[in-house]
């Protein structure tokens, strides 16, 4: 009974925490531009994420080591520096796009176009990290995050043609605008396979003191939680397809996405969208700032935990503070939020091998995970999807930059 509750809670947490500005914007854009045709990118990304999340939980449960610490242990400092630098910079960039989403949500709700939303949002996130504990942040963000289920409700109310949607789950060649098609596909995969989630998840497992008995529970919660989470992204794509395609509206700017729920739910749809966007982005900001702090602190062997007073983990607190400031500066400088979101998601895809290949080697090393090593299925699936995302990213990012 207790196990069942634990599993349910784990799944609910993953669902509530799944959607963030990256998956929301990329799915909506895919739906508006290509109908159901890009559902396969969400499916592939989610499958890969299921394996990776399961792996990072298993690593933490078996070796009592979070991912970042294990990487430094296994590969040594010089090599560790590569994923450290790449993932920290990427973290700041992704955080900026979440902050952009949060600012937009605040602007939608209040009607005020206010340049100070970004620093205010960053400050609110910082305050929660400063005062909160790990479980408050994790549980709170995902509980409020359940509001994103509104997209599933909306998708069902539109009565989509599910057989056509299912056909979109199979990869196909673009019928028009090939460059845009592949670039959005790459961004979707980057948004789904968010590497920062892995540092967050494994550090959380260590904070919650998992052990080997948690391995089966972890497997179930990762599988179902991430699958349902992926279904949320699919719901966003379906709603965007059915609302925007018949009108010929493409998503050029963030503001346009705000309209996707109003034909279904009227005025409350507008505010539900804003609330879902704001909460999802805010939760993701907390997770990203913590992930960067975990990555750096564990890599350098500093004391780290979200459950102590900031002065007792001074350097850890310094890192998340700096990450939030960095993200806020990017938003204040005034880069277009949609552009930065798409670009940071595509960049994530391009940088995936740096984070994932060492992780895979770790998960095959009996010295770390003993008998809980990866099977050939997880190795093959993760390699194939990460490889595909990488190749598509390397090809499509330069083309997108040249084209725009």
């Amino acid at each position, binding site marked *: 009974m207790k196990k069942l509750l634990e599993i349910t809670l784990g799944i609910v947490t993953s669902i509530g925490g799944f959607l963030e500005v990256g998956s929301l914007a990329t799915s909506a854009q895919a739906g508006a531009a290509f109908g159901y045709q890009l559902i396969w990118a969400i499916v592939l990304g989610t499958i890969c994420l299921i394996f990776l999340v399961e792996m990072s939980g298993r690593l933490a449960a078996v070796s009592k080591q979070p991912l970042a610490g294990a990487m430094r242990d*296994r*590969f*040594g*400092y*010089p*090599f560790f*520096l*590569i994923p450290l630098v790449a993932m920290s910079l990427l973290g700041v960039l992704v955080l900026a796009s979440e902050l952009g989403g949060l600012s937009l949500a605040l602007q939608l709700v209040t009607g005020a176009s206010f340049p100070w939303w970004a620093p205010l949002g960053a400050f609110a996130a910082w305050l929660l990290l400063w005062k909160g504990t790990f479980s408050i942040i994790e549980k709170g963000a995902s509980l409020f995050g359940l509001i994103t289920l509104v997209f599933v409700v909306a998708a069902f109310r539109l009565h989509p043609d599910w057989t056509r949607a299912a056909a979109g789950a199979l990869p196909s060649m673009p019928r028009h605008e090939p460059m845009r098609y592949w670039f959005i596909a790459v961004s979707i995969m980057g948004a789904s396979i968010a590497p920062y989630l892995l540092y967050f998840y494994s550090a959380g497992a260590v904070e919650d003191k998992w052990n080997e008995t948690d391995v089966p529970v972890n497997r179930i919660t990762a599988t179902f939680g991430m699958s349902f989470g992926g279904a949320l992204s699919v719901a966003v794509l379906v709603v965007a397809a059915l609302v925007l395609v018949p009108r010929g509206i493409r998503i050029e700017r963030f503001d346009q996405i705000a309209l996707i729920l109003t034909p279904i739910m009227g005025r409350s749809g507008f505010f539900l969208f804003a609330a879902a966007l704001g909460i999802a982005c805010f939760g993701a900001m907390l997770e990203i700032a913590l992930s960067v702090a975990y990555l750096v602190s564990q890599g350098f062997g500093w004391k780290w935990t979200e459950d102590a007073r900031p002065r007792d983990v001074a350097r850890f607190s310094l890192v998340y503070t700096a990450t939030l400031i960095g993200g806020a500066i990017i938003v204040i400088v005034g880069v277009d939020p949609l552009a930065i979101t798409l670009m940071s998601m595509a960049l994530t895809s391009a940088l995936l091998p740096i984070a994932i290949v*060492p992780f895979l*080697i770790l998960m095959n*090393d009996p010295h770390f995970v003993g008998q809980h090593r990866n099977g050939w299925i997880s190795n093959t699936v993760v390699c194939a999807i990460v490889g595909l995302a990488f190749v598509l990213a390397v090809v499509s990012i330069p083309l997108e930059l040249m084209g725009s």
Partner: protein
Amino acid sequence: MGVRNINVELLLDKEVKDSEGRSAGRIEEIRARRDGEGIIVEAYHLGPQALLERLAAPVMRLSLMRVLGLHRHSHSLRVPWDQLDLSDPERPVLRCPREELVKLAR
């Protein structure tokens, strides 16, 4: 000759020449034994040579062997502590020809 301190981490991936000036491999692990409170070095393990060197960037090369776990495979040589001359840590030299070393089986 006196005692000098050597940073082990800087020996890693240094190329070792044998007594006849030929390359014998790169230092990739140091085997030691706990002896009371002290830790005493028994042997150095040399890994395979320069396979991927030209392909990878310098940072990559530093730890590529560790990353790929190549040192687990054959072609590794075991050098007893008294056969490696570290009087110049930048240029480690074997006191014997490389044929006299034992191949590590794995």
